[in-house]
């Protein structure tokens, strides 16, 4: 079955100036596709560029180079107001910290309806209210919550408001940047279940950015691993966890503590040493198995391939 690409990221670059004559290459030549209806997980440590990638895709940052195609249209570059509006409606974002991403001086009704107003999706006050109340119920809150303000809610509830706001304009694609990191464990599961349910009901596509690898594995169909601005490995989530190839992916996987004491007692941590890489040429993103990509040089490619075969 040919899957339809909803988003294509091609050689995306985002550099930030850092003082005189210095630049930080937060995202440096990253390419990947996201297919309609899937969840694409992006993992990496702080500073790996995973959030910058997400924010550049949705145009919160202007890209330094490269292309982002959403439904085959370039996201960046000069756009008319109408084009921008259309694009903004199809792509929405959920942020990490639900207390700083909601305006404390607006009530929940206005927060959620802001998108509806901007895009002119409701005709009158009554329709607006009905729409907001419906959205509140979709995310598991009550109609009565509409008149309250963000500070009256707990972290998990605030994140639900953030999700309702993103859903209001009926997007196709949602970027969730660490949507559960700030929440308590039992609340995390509620929010993840909600995101999964909404995906099923509405055919949403997610870009799920997180550093909690076990949660990413659980929610994602495919996962990309980022390290210092580069995508170093990309594969289906089972394949990535069972057959990691890149030494950084291995080290990241070996560092996750799992809720299993026996496993923890026997866990051997692999330390990533960037100097082991073959420096003879610039590494490239190569397909080592169908749909399993790794950033490596030609020499490393042969070596990784042999390792994979031996593991079979």
């Amino acid at each position, binding site marked *: 079955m040919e899957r339809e690409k909803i988003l294509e990221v091609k050689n995306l670059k985002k550099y930030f100036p850092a003082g005189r004559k210095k630049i930080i290459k937060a995202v440096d030549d990253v390419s990947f596709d996201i297919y309609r209806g899937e969840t694409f997980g992006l993992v990496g*440590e*702080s500073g790996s560029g995973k959030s910058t990638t997400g924010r550049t895709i949705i145009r919160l940052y202007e890209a330094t180079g490269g292309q982002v195609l959403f439904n085959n249209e370039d996201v960046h570059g000069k756009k008319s107001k109408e084009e921008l509006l259309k694009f903004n409606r199809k792509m929405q974002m959920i942020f990490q910290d639900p207390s700083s991403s909601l305006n404390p001086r607006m009530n929940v009704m206005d927060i959620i309806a802001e998108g509806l107003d901007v895009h002119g999706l409701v005709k009158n006050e009554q329709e607006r209210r009905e729409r907001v109340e419906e959205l509140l119920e979709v995310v598991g809150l009550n109609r009565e919550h509409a008149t309250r303000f963000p500070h009256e809610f*707990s972290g*998990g*509830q605030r994140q639900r408001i953030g999700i309702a706001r993103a859903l209001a304009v009926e997007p196709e694609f949602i970027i969730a940047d660490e949507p559960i990191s700030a929440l*308590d*464990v*039992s*609340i*995390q*599961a*509620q929010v*993840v*279940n909600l995101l*999964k349910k909404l995906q099923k009901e509405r055919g949403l596509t997610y870009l799920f950015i997180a*550093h909690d*690898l*076990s*949660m990413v*594995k*659980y929610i994602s169909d495919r996962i990309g691993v980022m390290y210092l601005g580069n995508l170093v490995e990309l594969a289906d989530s089972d394949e990535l*966890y069972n057959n990691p190839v890149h030494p950084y992916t291995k*080290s*990241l996987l*070996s*560092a*996750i*503590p*799992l*809720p*299993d*004491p*026996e*496993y*923890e007692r026997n*866990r051997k*941590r692999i330390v*990533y040493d960037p100097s082991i890489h073959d420096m003879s040429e610039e590494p490239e993103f190569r397909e080592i198995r169908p749909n399993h990509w790794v950033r490596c040089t030609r020499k490393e490619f042969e070596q990784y391939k042999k390792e994979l075969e031996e593991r079979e």
Partner: protein
Amino acid sequence: MSKLLEVKDLRVSFHTYNGEVQAVRGVNFHVNKGETLAIVGESGSGKSVTTSAIMGLLPKPQAEIKSGQILFEGEDLVKKSNKEMQKIRGADISMVFQDPMTSLNPTMKVGNQIMEGLIKHQGMSRTEARKKAVELLDQVGIPHPEVRINQYPHQFSGGMRQRVVIAIALACNPKLLIADEPTTALDVTIQAQILELMKDIQKQTESAIIFITHDLGVVANVADRVAVMYAGKIVEMGTVDDIFYDPRHPYTWGLLGSMPTLDSEEEELYAIPGSPPDMLNPPKGDAFAPRNKFALEIDLVKEPPMFQISDTHYAATWLLHEHAPKIEPPASVKKRMEGFAKTGGKA
């Protein structure tokens, strides 16, 4: 094993404009010499308040210890004056906080921050303290300690800063180290390094550690024993194997079930519905009952006592009463128990 610290029926309340918040409601536990006790629970469960009470760091006058004893080597810390506590803090009991940026003084060189305790508690001269500080930085794995000692916190990365905080905490060879979410702000690979470091140091110094966290993966890694807190009480307590492979309290089930393991394939995570109770008006009966689908009628009326399951394992749930109906734990938890039984404890 001898008990280093024993907390008996500790109750702590905060007085606020809205009334009295009962943050800790009758907590009992002990810590043996040289072991690691992990306290897990969500925000607001009272885990940090419990340790603040042990350290004598509760904000006054809002917080009040309503009753209870904190026996450290037989002496009751609740009765100690502030001055007496100052002698204990940093010497016998020390603490590592969550955020290394806010627990270090940004205007002081790290060397001086480490030396402070040595000079104050151990009466060292500046030269001696300086030598010891270099040794400590080396011990916590900071390269070039003789250079780093003259640097300020902002010149260190997050993981390195947390190492400095650990060096300060270890300076006077504490008998008890309290670590309040010490790795939560760090990346996984750095977290793994810090946990390894703490375990190594514990082996060398034989200090006991109280480790507060909400990350069950970390608990499985560091703990000898685990206390699960909910709404200001300990609801289940046992060895790390008891808690992870034979959990009895529905709240523990919920916590374990809501974390996916790497091989979970369930369509939906086992989530605990609702949110933690408001401690201004703690619910009558079992505080967890409103969120507990296994709750019995009695849960809404009377609080369950601690039932003993084995020498090491206790849980506060009416489900353990002899007249309670037998119920099946959720599938993901059952899988965990069965997997363990099959291998006879050797997964």
